């Protein structure tokens, strides 16, 4: 645990320099599911980095390997070959326990659904990663995140007392309050209507712009990708293109090129 240098890049209020270190990266990463005839090469020799303080979207058709890429970069799964780094730490060198502690301290997650523990209140859900580490949240960070997300009134509520949008805000708050080096999201707005989805995406964007949070988000929605600073296009397990300062229309056009 102590071996992993905490790259505290979430200094409140200031953006990180554009060419700061990479918060996470994959090097020659391949992931193969199954074997023989049923072998699926979900990631095929991918090398990609995610810069600190940047909001990256991973786009690609269904089944292209977006989720696989994110899961491996986030230390939720083991690569078949190649390496995944968080900061300077090679995840493949970590034991299950150290990997867990790494996720707890340095990585935030926002899933598409089932983000929250139904038996815990919103506040307990938000502080869960810290509580697992027997830590308390930094009160400033906590207050700011809660207020920006507008969920202060809902802190005592159980997830089943919250709307889908509120639940996702709580999930975003959980991902941010622990001040992780990087936040990964897998279609975090996939289950929301477009207006609520847009609100969540704005919060994520603000977190990047205002506190320099690093975010990597998988999506298949060009509109969602447009909130990012950079879009990485994946197809058939490979990175096929990249786009900076994306707009919805440009992403949409690029996606059409995949012919699906």
């Amino acid at each position: 645990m102590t071996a992993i240098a905490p790259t505290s890049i979430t200094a409140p209020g200031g953006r990180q320099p554009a060419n700061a270190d990479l918060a996470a990266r994959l090097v020659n990463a391949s992931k193969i599911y199954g074997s023989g005839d049923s072998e699926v090469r979900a990631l095929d020799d991918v090398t990609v980095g995610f810069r600190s303080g940047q909001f990256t979207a991973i786009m690609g058709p269904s089944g292209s390997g977006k989720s696989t890429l994110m899961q491996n970069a986030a230390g939720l799964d083991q690569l078949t070959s190649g390496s995944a780094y968080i900061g300077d730490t090679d995840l493949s060198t970590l034991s299950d326990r150290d990997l867990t502690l790494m996720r707890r301290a340095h990585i935030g997650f926002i899933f598409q659904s089932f983000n929250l523990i139904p038996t815990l209140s919103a506040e307990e859900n938000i502080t869960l990663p810290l509580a697992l580490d027997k830590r308390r949240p930094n009160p400033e960070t906590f207050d700011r995140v809660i207020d920006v997300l507008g969920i202060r009134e809902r802190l005592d509520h159980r997830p089943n007392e919250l709307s889908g949008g509120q639940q996702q805000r709580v999930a975003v708050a959980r991902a941010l309050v622990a001040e992780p080096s990087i936040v990964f999201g897998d279609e975090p707005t996939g289950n929301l209507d477009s207006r609520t989805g847009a609100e969540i995406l704005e919060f994520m964007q603000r977190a990047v712009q205002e506190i320099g949070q690093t975010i990597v988000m998988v999506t298949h929605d060009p509109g969602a990708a447009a909130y990012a600073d950079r879009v990485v296009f994946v197809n058939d397990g490979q990175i096929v293109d990249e786009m900076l300062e994306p707009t919805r229309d440009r992403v949409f056009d690029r996606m059409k090129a995949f012919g699906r």
Partner: protein
Amino acid sequence: MTTATTSTASATAPRTSGMTRVTTAGLWANRSRFTLTGLAVLLSVAFLTAMLILTTTISGTASDDIREANAGIDLVVTGAELGESADSGGPRGADILSSVVPLGTEASLTAVDGVDDAVGIVTGYARALDTDGIPVDTGVITYTGQNWVDGELGTHTLVDGTAPTGADQVVLEARTADELDLAVGDPVEILTSTGTLDVEVTGIADYASSGSDPDAAIVFFDDAVAADVLAATGLERIVVDGTADAATVAAAVGTDPLGNPLTVTTGADYTQGLIDDVESRTSFQTTFLLFFAGVALVAGTTIIYNTFVIAVAQRTRELALLRTIGASKRQVLGSVMIEAAVIGVLASAVGAAFGVVTVFGLISLFEAIGLSFLAGSPVITSSSLIAGFAVGLVATLASAYAPARKAASIAPIAALRDSVNDASAASIVRNGIAVALLLCGIGLGIWGVVAGSWIPATAGIGSAFVGIIVGGPGVTSIFSRSVDGAIGRFRDADSTIVGRLARMNASRNPKRSASTAFALTLGVALISFFTVMAASLGASTSSDVGDALASDLVVESLSTGPIGEATIPGDLDTTIAGIDGVTSISSLRVTTALADGAGLVVGSVDTDAVTTTYDLGVTDGSLAGLADGQIAVSQTYLDTLETPLAVGDTIELTFPTAGIVDAEIGAIVANDLPGLAPSFIFDTTTLDGIVGPGLDDTIYVTTNGSEATFAAIEDAVSAAGGATLFTAEAYADSLGSFIDTFTNFVYAMLAVAVVIAVVGIANTTVMAVNERVREIGMLRAVGMTSAQIRSMIRNEAAMLSVQGSLVGLAFGIAAAYVAFSALGGDEGIIISVPVVTMAWIALAGAVSGVLAAAWPAWKASRLPPLEAMS
């Protein structure tokens, strides 16, 4: 997870085979939970089958044997019925005390028309000794000697050797000969009420086809000497062969020594009486055994029910989907019931077979804890196996039926909803009913205690028990909330997030948690109840005796207990009295008699020595007059009389062999001698004069305390055989030792229910883990370590087991308190709650949950965090 795939598959398949496939696929996909459910059924059925085999062994063949052995007897003449015996202390443990038939009466029948043969049977105490002088133990009720009867009127037939002739020959039953490893021609020592005899075994005999009398181990002597050797003052019965009717025989035989007309019964009635005696004695044992089988079955059934309730809840969407695509209610009901049937058939069949193994295990266990009510090998009949199987199958189907009905009533629309967690359980109405039942139970319990009446006491216990069942879910919610609150107050809340998650999980579905905990509650409640009962009985006996005992050593017959027999050789007391350093010695002899038609145990002591060995606590009169034939009676007996008796009054005692004795009350005593409650005490010379000499039951010895004296006494006792030497404290403790044996037996029996309960906790935990795979994956993703996951699951199970055992403990103690206060108030039972034992029981119960969760916790901790995203 897998369920979704199954249902889609069935959508395209033809209907009937589709439903079958859904069922089989469902069983396979959920094999771990059905394995555990099956295990619960298997354990219950195995235990039940074992109990059925044991009950058959105990009672099954005895009646056939008795009929066979007594088949040649047409009429039986016995003494007059005098009254009920005390504690089944009558001959052969019979409930009725009868007088005897005068010696020689059979001669008056030889001339009677229609009597072909008439033989008088004399009985008396006789027990074979092993080469060390230790009396043989074949696990029977009594050890007797009897005259050998040849031919049709005899109950036994020789299988080897010849009938005994003269005073130095005997025939033994095969069981005794086997136990002592004796063959025809071998010498053997026989302990009788007049001393030990050195004799030769001339024959081995079998009772009916099974080899041994079901109640007694009999040593046969020559007809000519039996009455002498056995010091018999009368015949126990006359057996008659012939066509004469009962009235003719009755007229010919006359009266008993007390002047009552003798009883004449037909062979058939006599045989039935013997069978009834055996059955009334064994029915207690069989009822007891079946009670424990029932407890195990209830525990098992709760788990089957619980499994199916959870399974149906988990499959709500799948079942609704089946309904949407056209499955009828009956098909859905059928698919659940088929699952139950598959589990029921497999587990019950294996369980019944496993029951046979269990029987042998239990028999060795009984031997290990010193229980010997089972002699010989188990009688394994196909009906025991079939009954075990059938009960298991029916119980499985019955407990799956309600959940199956619920499954069938799932609306197709449920397929479109998120599955809803049933947290509804702790409804106000339900909790209200539970509180009402509990209060009613407490009220009735208090009434029972105050009034000393068992009807309100048992009703109160029952009502409270139902209250616990009804209120289970409410208790779960309150319990986890208060544990959570308590822990939150004492510890930094953030540091206990894992524990908090566990506590929240345990109360997530209160109905499910409650019914899981119930099996453990039941087991722990019964264990606590019996523990308090045993401790109270033990405390009552040992403390009384410990206080009153003044001697420093006690020599005790080998086999005492509820139906003990005196086994101390006649001359041991004189030997000990002669040892240097022995300052005082008093021996206790006992016999049975009746007062006011009720059987009682009458004892005799050496009056001049008893004051220094045992404090009888004289409250009125004095023991001095005992030497002149007066009797000492305990106050507890006088308290039961309607017309009070006082010192100087006369009490009429009827001795079955010796007739009526009017004894003047010389003293009233407060302390009963062990085994004599209430006490009737004569001086030794008086009682010897009435019933003839007997063996000592107990010898109290006071010494100068020197080690040499103790060593000399020790040597004398071991040389004599038939006796055990205790120090005073050890003796007081040993009086409770049969209680220890009993408690161990009960623990062993209830352990099965507890094991089943633990399987149930494991099962519920496995199902909960399966249900929460995504959630656990999510926890892993956000940083919960495998160890924390394991700890969470273990804590969750511990919440169930702690709740189950605490409720069980509280209920068991309360029920025992109420029951014994209501029942045992006048008998002076001290209610004693052994706190340390109770703490151990609670701890073991709580730990059992953690053990139960070990495997599910390990499984959960191995779930990859990815599960959260798929």
